[in-house]
């Protein structure tokens, strides 16, 4: 398969672009694999890629019930950051950040990771101190973070209202310069192409309908395209975790599925050069390379698998947007969509062996899943290959809730709606 480069682009253009080959094959499923990964989203594809690349395990199938990348990797607001409060999260997301920083080269696919920075605005001195606590926590783990004054913030984001008569004036902010955005679909496609090139079978339109079992042990899956046996079955279906685990007879999980809406405006000339978040509500925004402002806020706040939300969140998000950027009142929202998030009981993910023998589980991403994609795949591949977690994902067990070892970055307790 051809390497992608400016040169290959030129060569192909001269031939009328007739010679480009599919980015990944469309194989039929084999009867058995060493590893079957359920879920052809970012995390599943990344897992397959790192299994093949780092662990030499290439007899792998990724099963996707719809089209590749149809889950949250294709419907998020593309922010990438590692600005967490609690060390378990910061370490994990920083590992992800390091993988992001070389991802386009690694995959020979431009995922357009743009390290344009992520700024959390603070609106009271108390909140500023909270951000300082977080920023210092990051710095003590070797992660970049800095505080910014309103004047510095205004210089960075001229359209932001930092006036004192704002309802919630900006008193400062926490900036992670290495944070940024990436082209979400490209991440799925790049990992798919990379895994495919290493022999992984990516099988779309293949819905898992049940698990093959030998006693407790999971030995494969039944699918809409036939039974597939596997030595190891890995589940990476965030958003649908409840549904898939129920197929395995596991009725309850420390997870609720919630719908998260996101929005994009019509295309604009460069308006904002960073990712920015509002501190007195829940709002975040960046601008895509195409020019649309990409933004969102809170989850709708009720269980849903519907990939669509309702108006209260739409109104709330837009109101907060204009509180920060009053110049955008006449700009228009072009499109909205919904993604289904696995909201866990402490706001942190699960990457673990089990809960059944032969099964491996990756879920509970709340709405932090996109930025986690590389590290999630990396850690999950490690866990599957070595049958033990890496240090990075060791805290993200399934039994941590019952044991009280929660990783609660927001301090909201067992209330998924609030994480």
């Amino acid at each position, binding site marked *: 398969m051809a390497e992608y480069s400016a040169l290959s682009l030129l060569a192909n253009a001269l031939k009328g672009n007739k010679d480009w080959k599919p*980015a990944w094959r469309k194989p039929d499923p084999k009867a058995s694999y060493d590893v079957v990964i359920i879920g052809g989203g970012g995390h599943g594809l990344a897992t397959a890629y790192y299994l093949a690349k780092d662990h030499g395990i290439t007899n792998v199938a990724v099963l996707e019930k719809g089209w590749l990348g149809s889950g949250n990797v294709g419907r998020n607001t593309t922010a990438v950051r590692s600005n967490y409060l609690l060390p378990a999260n910061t370490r994990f997301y920083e590992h992800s950040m390091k993988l992001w920083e070389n991802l386009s080269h690694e995959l020979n696919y431009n995922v357009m990771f743009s390290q344009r920075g992520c700024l959390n605005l603070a609106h009271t001195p108390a909140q500023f101190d909270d951000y300082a606590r977080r920023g210092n926590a990051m710095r003590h783990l070797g992660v970049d973070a800095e505080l910014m004054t309103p004047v510095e913030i205004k210089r960075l984001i001229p359209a932001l209202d930092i006036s004192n008569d704002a309802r919630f004036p900006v008193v400062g902010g926490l900036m992670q310069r290495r944070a940024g955005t990436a082209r979400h679909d490209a991440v799925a496609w790049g990992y798919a192409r990379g895994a495919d090139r290493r022999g992984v079978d990516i099988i779309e339109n293949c819905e898992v309908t049940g698990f093959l079992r030998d006693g407790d042990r999971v030995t494969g899956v039944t699918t809409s395209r036939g039974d597939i046996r596997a030595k190891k079955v890995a589940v990476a279906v965030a958003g649908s975790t409840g549904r898939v685990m129920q197929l395995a007879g596991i009725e309850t999980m420390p997870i609720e599925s919630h719908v998260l809406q996101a929005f994009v405006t019509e295309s604009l000339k460069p308006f904002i050069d960073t990712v920015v978040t509002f501190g007195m509500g829940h709002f975040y925004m960046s601008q895509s390379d195409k020019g649309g402002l990409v933004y969102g806020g809170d989850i709708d706040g009720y269980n849903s698998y519907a990939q669509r939300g309702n108006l209260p969140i739409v109104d709330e998000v837009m109101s907060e947007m204009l509180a920060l950027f009053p110049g955008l009142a006449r700009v228009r929202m072009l499109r909205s969509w919904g993604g289904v998030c696995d909201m866990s009981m402490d706001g942190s993910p699960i990457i673990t062996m089990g809960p059944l023998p032969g099964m491996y589980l990756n879920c509970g991403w709340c709405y932090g899943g996109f930025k986690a994609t590389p590290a999630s795949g990396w850690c999950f591949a490690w866990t599957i290959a070595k049958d033990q977690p890496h240090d990075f994902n060791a805290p993200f067990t399934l039994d941590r809730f019952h044991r009280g070892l929660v990783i609660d970055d927001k301090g909201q307790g067992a209330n998924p709606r609030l994480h």
Partner: protein
Amino acid sequence: MSPRRTDTGGHVDRLKTIRFTFDGVAYTGHGGDTLASALLANGVTLFGRSFKYHRPRGLLSAGVEEPNALVTVLKGEVREPNIPATMVEIHDGLIAVSQNRFPSLTWDIHAVNQLGGKLLSAGFYYKTFMGPVVGPLKGTRFWMFCEHFIRRAAGLGSAGSAKDPARYERMNAFCDVLVVGSGPAGLMAAKTAADQGARVILADLEPRFGGSANWSGETIDDASAADWVRRTVAQLEARDNVRLLPRTTVWGYYDNNTLAALERVSDHKAQPAKGEPRHRYWAIRAGSVVLATGAFERPLVFPGNDRPGVMLAHAAERYANEFGVLPGQRVVVFTNNDSAYRSALALKQAGAAIVAIVDVRPQPSAEMSALAGEAEAELLSGHAVVATEGGKALSGLKVQRFDMVAGALSGDARSVHADCLLMSGGWSPTIHLASQAGAKAEWNEALQAFLPPKRTQKWVGAGAFNGHFMTLEAILDGRNAGLTAVGATVAPMAYPHIESLPCDPRPAPVFEIKAKGKSFVDFQHDVTAEDVRLAHREGFVSVEHLKRYTTLGMATDQGKSSNVPGLAIMAEALGKPIPEVGTTRFRPPFAPVSIGSLAAERFGDLKPERLTPMHDWHVDNGATMYSAGLWYRPMIYGLSGETVEQAYVREAKATRENAGIVDVSTLGKIAVQGPDAAAFLDRVYTNMFSTLAVGKARYGLMLREDGFAFDDGTTWRLGDQDFLMTTTTANAGKVMQHLEYFLDVIWPELKAHVTSVTDEWAGAAIGGPKARQILAACVTGTDVDNATLPFMGIVHGEISGVPVMICRLSFSGEMAFEVYSGAGHGTHVWEALVEAGRPFGLVTYGLEALGTMRIEKGHVTGAEIDGRTTARDLHLDWMLSKKKPFIGSAMMDREGLVASERLELVGLIALDNRPLNGGAHIVEEVDEANPHGSIGHITACCYSPALGKHIALALVKGGKARHGTRAHVSDPLRNRFGPVEIVSNHFYDPEGTRMHG
């Protein structure tokens, strides 16, 4: 008269002249014109530039689906980018400018992109710009360097940062029937439902009701269709159960028949009336909905189909019949279906020459041949347009023989001189709202279109929405829909008499003419048929991949005219029928919606301000107000020239020396009443309340179900069955919901009621060695001595003639009292206390001094009860009753909650006498260059006037075990490092002698 304006015809008011500018050039138009029709009338052909190649573009359409003619409307410094000229009603003083061009629309430097056409194919950016693996541009740097320029080339109009002075509003509406679309079907449905007595809302995105009836040239019951519309609208206007909403786009179909609509109230006026909003956002809860949203005409895909002067056939018909504007003098029509023949005839009647009708079908019907004859047009059946010519306006085109079964061209290309090419590729019903409502569209082979999905909510379709394109069908549909929507039986009706031209709605299944040159599918995003085929070659074949890889259908028009042709081309490449490629689900909004309208009344007023009864007094007396959640509270009462620190140190010091008074009205207050109130409190607090005597208060702690600390406060027993609970300001609402949940869901057998009385009471806390003397000086009706009012005692009395309730409790560590009065008397009592305190040196103090004194005392607040700490972490384990279960008691001893490495509350004293910072971390060994090894962090800090030191509260691993040891603050963010001593959190008067007096 403008060069292309017809002398008669259309619904514009030729007597009314309106002046406006476009790109700085002054033009005139008439009442009823859109910017598009007015400019077209002035002979303007070039309206915009495309996204990627910056190709010159004219009008494709006359409506909301316009992808090309996007403009920015300027109101002073306020910019409104990306508005289709077809949707802008002109008014005097309108200023519009073109976009995405430099230096001008006519001479755009970025048009050079066209030269790189093949290089800039779909998804090219995924394959390049990665840069070197080593060196200064490794990692993401090269990409970010390129991105800088890419971003500047991309984008359409510019947003501004000036605040929009316009007003936006929301309107909540309820109706039995919402009718969307006011063409013959919608009008008929609205009239029928209204006649049945239903509450009806009729919305149309155009300023003029009537839809196609305004330009079809048909007659209904012997009146012109437009007159029929006028008559029907007048009937509806006269009814008080009907609300008519012109200029209103219903853009979202949400759950349970909740629909969102945008009314453009005053955009068409030079100035809105006083108090009049610019946009009104209608949130409509409808019993049922009639979807009479019509259909969009599709373009044909052929080389040069994007040249200015090439437009949709019905759009030209609209310009001629509705606006009295001729889009061209020498017109060619290119079609795969019958409907364009009517357009041809309409233009002919308006004065244009129809040079030819090019029909891909080998043998159009006899009726069509007759129509062509009537239009005096040469009928080129079995032909196709294969090229267009001209620069910023069409000058001609090439036609070739075409076999639509084989899709093959043959024979020589023939040149035709024309200044306008009308194309029609069939019609796609506007099913967006139905699709949003929840289901998948269904392909109809005969109509070559996606028809409405199965019904998932309460709607009824009518007219072209259903694929019923004839006016007679629309009217019958509309009537049936109106009846169905109100739940009435559908009875047959007398057919209206409609005079319309013959038209078979079935188009030939031809979407693309393959010939040399760029054939556009998505006009705005410059997605060509070749791009679609490239996506196919690279495996991006599912409709979502196609869309995402090529950006087809993702422009501001959201693929209204491009989706189906794009799908058809992919289907052909795949060798599959169209429905197997799929259709994307439509998502809100149907058409772009101003963000201002969505914020509506909260634009400029995000959150209400919550004010204490004494708010105005604080402001009048020099307080600097601090925003705490929704509340405003005094931070300091600064004297002139004082810094914040000087002020709070003075206030705290004076309080500890004499007395201070602070407004504590924001504390959450909940009345807990009923025979089981005490039992209930025993369950929600970790400590006992049933043992509390009437007339006494007790400090209480609540845990969450998971065993972590939740909130704290004092609760006062005012009567046997009557408690007044106080919560922290921040958690008042959460605690209230927590209590309600347990009473309603878990323990419904308990007879206890909870009511928020936060706002009922004004609270003033007065503390300090002289506090009691001050009270004694102003309180009547009760003594306040130690015997009458012991620590945690409550008395009732009066201050300045107003009843008050006084509880002796202390947050500051001084002898202190909380004085509660009815909120309406708050200022009166406050002033009386301040007055009484004057001889004793009483100061008013704010949050800063309050915080300082609580840090000195080591009391916890939200900074320490942060949702991650336990009672033990905060040394409040003495409050965990062992005599009874309480919320959280079963979960509080789990492994993770009692682990030895948990963070515990300690005090810190800066050993270098420099200020500490909130959020600084604590380390055993400082490493400024490479900070690491955090053992905790500062939660709150201040300069302590009582100790004369900089102190802090902190959560630190090991906690108590470290008392008396040294550590360091490590605050790389603010470059503050230095030694601290770890001490008990009780800095000041740990025995409590002062408050116990």
